[in-house]
């Protein structure tokens, strides 16, 4: 170990030549362009994986059939029906004339949800009295039932707010109130968060690129040249960052135009923060890949250390568990989930997202620095 000192004397760590950096970058761009699978992995697969994951993890892809039992038949009850019948996630099957019809329809599987409006509903609303409605769900599909009932509870409650000025207490007896994603569309909160997952793919590609060079032996030739660790690491990262941004743009386009998730924050903020996230994932994965000798171990490391924990721990499916908080916080994805949801759903500005942004920036800076410092121009 005493020799590391001697090696430092070469002071190769900070020294950089733009010419050599440029040579590595050009070479790396060529590798990506000429390897169709690699090109696909970095630029196209994030968007495709986003679609696949969104359908895998969301429960609201098919429209839910529902029926309406209106015992009031007032102007107000018809307005509520209109509001529900035009909802994008519900399919209005028809009206029924009795509880028995409602039960029969649900038993036959023709409907999954039913809403019963009591007599006097409209009169109570107008008079400012609190009124109740009955929501029936098909318990044979508990997840859909729970999700949709919670969502409808929120929707009806919000619809009832129009009558609020007449009454200080909520006009319709629904207590659930959900912030930011009032219609509880799981795709709306899921898709932006899943961006954090699919943008690990460029990182996976850089891990493969780094280990392939060792595996195929070209690193041995390169190690015997005057190339500097900083040139090598940055020369690898920059092309993957550029193509990674292309991949990110594709995935964001899918979120906006396929899943129709509204982007309430600034697109510029989204671009900037995505850049930081890509830098952090590329950096951390580069650091880890530096200790791997083969593409297969690098691939496994990315899957087991980043992709899988990011899916389950970063707060995409469930809120971050206090027990796994530390692990979650050490994953760049956890911070980007906060950022993506903040930008898409809450319309937050970059000032409000200072903490996760700062953490990502630090992760990027430290991981890239350590990747450079730990790179050995050695084989074996």
């Amino acid at each position, binding site marked *: 170990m005493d020799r590391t000192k001697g090696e430092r004397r070469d002071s190769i760590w900070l020294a950089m030549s733009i010419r*050599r950096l440029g040579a590595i970058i050009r070479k790396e761009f060529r590798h990506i362009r000429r390897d169709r699978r690699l090109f696909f992995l970095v630029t196209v697969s994030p968007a495709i994986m986003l679609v696949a994951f969104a359908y895998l993890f969301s429960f609201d892809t098919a429209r839910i059939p529902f029926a309406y039992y209106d015992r009031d038949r007032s102007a107000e009850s018809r307005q509520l029906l209109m509001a529900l019948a035009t909802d994008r996630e519900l399919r209005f099957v028809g009206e029924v004339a009795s509880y028995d019809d409602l039960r029969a329809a649900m038993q036959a599987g023709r409907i999954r949800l039913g809403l019963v409006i009591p007599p006097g509903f409209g009169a109570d609303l107008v008079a400012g009295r609190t009124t109740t409605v009955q929501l029936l769900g098909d318990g044979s599909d508990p997840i859909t039932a729970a999700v949709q009932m919670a969502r409808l509870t929120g929707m009806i409650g919000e619809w009832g707010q129009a009558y609020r000025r007449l009454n200080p207490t909520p006009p319709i007896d629904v207590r659930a109130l959900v912030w930011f994603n009032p219609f509880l569309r799981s795709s709306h909160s899921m898709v932006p968060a899943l961006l954090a997952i699919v943008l690990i793919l460029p990182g996976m590609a850089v891990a493969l690129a780094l280990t392939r060079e060792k595996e195929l032996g070209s690193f041995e030739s390169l190690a015997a040249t005057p190339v500097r660790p900083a040139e090598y690491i940055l020369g690898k990262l920059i092309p993957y960052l550029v193509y990674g941004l292309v991949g990110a743009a594709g995935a964001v386009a899918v979120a906006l135009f396929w899943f129709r998730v509204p982007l309430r924050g600034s697109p510029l903020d989204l671009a900037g923060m995505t850049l930081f996230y890509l830098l952090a994932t590329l950096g951390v994965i580069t650091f880890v890949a530096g200790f791997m000798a083969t593409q297969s171990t690098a691939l496994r490391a990315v899957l087991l250390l980043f992709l899988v924990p990011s899916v389950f721990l970063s707060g995409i499916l469930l809120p971050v568990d206090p027990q796994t908080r530390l692990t979650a916080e050490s994953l760049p994805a956890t911070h980007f989930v906060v950022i993506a949801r903040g930008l898409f759903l809450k319309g937050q500005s970059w000032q409000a997202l200072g903490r996760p942004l700062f953490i990502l920036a630090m992760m990027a800076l430290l991981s890239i620095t350590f990747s450079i410092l730990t790179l050995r121009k*050695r084989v074996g």
Partner: protein
Amino acid sequence: MSTLFCRNLQRRFGKTVAVAGVDLDIAAGEMYGLIGPDGAGKTTLLRMLAGVLKPDAGTIRMAGVDVVRQPERVRSLLGYMPQRFSLYADLGVLENLLFYADIFGVRGAERRQRIERLLAFARLEDFRDRPAGQLSGGMKKKLALACALIHRPRVLLLDEPTNGVDPISRREFWDILADLHLEGVTILVTTPYMDEAERCQRVGLMHEGRILRQDTPSALQTWVPGRMLAVYAGDLAAIAAAVASFPGHLDHHTYGDRLHVFVAPDLTDPEAALAEHLRACGLSFRQILSDTPRLEEAFIHLIAHREDESIRAGARLPSVEL
């Protein structure tokens, strides 16, 4: 002072001792050939000399620079061609050359001139745009050499540069090395082929991590004891069994279509005596000739001798796979 120098160089991988204390002194402009069977430690030695593998112990100096401590200081004067194909298979011939030119800081008109010269030198002018991965074995090796030469290194380390190359390309390759030698480049080349080592000024025989002997190719041949007779026959196995009982027999092994028999130097007319012996055993043969041992023999003898001091007493040589 020698251009390439190392003392007591050692490296192990787990329990395997790959290089077990090697000393080398290679003079400026010398062409030094390192021969030895697979696993002898040639690649490990070259990697350490090239500054891409850390020795466990020992010192290396290249043109006066301590390679172990300051490998970066020798990069620009060293050309290293690893044993494995180590260029970028998806980049074209010209792209690979341009890449290494940029990495070594060769630019402008000089870059263009050198690349043209090297392309001509390696006879790759017509393959400029062909991806390196699609070149023949010989062309790959020549491109790798061209890339290693792009910055006009003073020292060249070549690890089995002609392995897996057809005989014509091998000859071409060695003609290129001869030119470089004339230009004054110091060359250390490893090879499993004895006939190639014979083209070097000095040859080192490496086995089990050590250099057993080093000398000029012609001097190495004189280390073989006794005289060598070549027996040409159809059934070499039967002849081999019979020569072991020949008085004065030291050693023998098959070499292509003949059997090489080493006999004590004090025998008078050994050809006739051996012929007599074989006839007495009831064996027929075409011819027995006195011959000069080639490097193979010298090499096998040295290894066997090291492993088994009783060789001189007439024990059979272990076979060595080359």
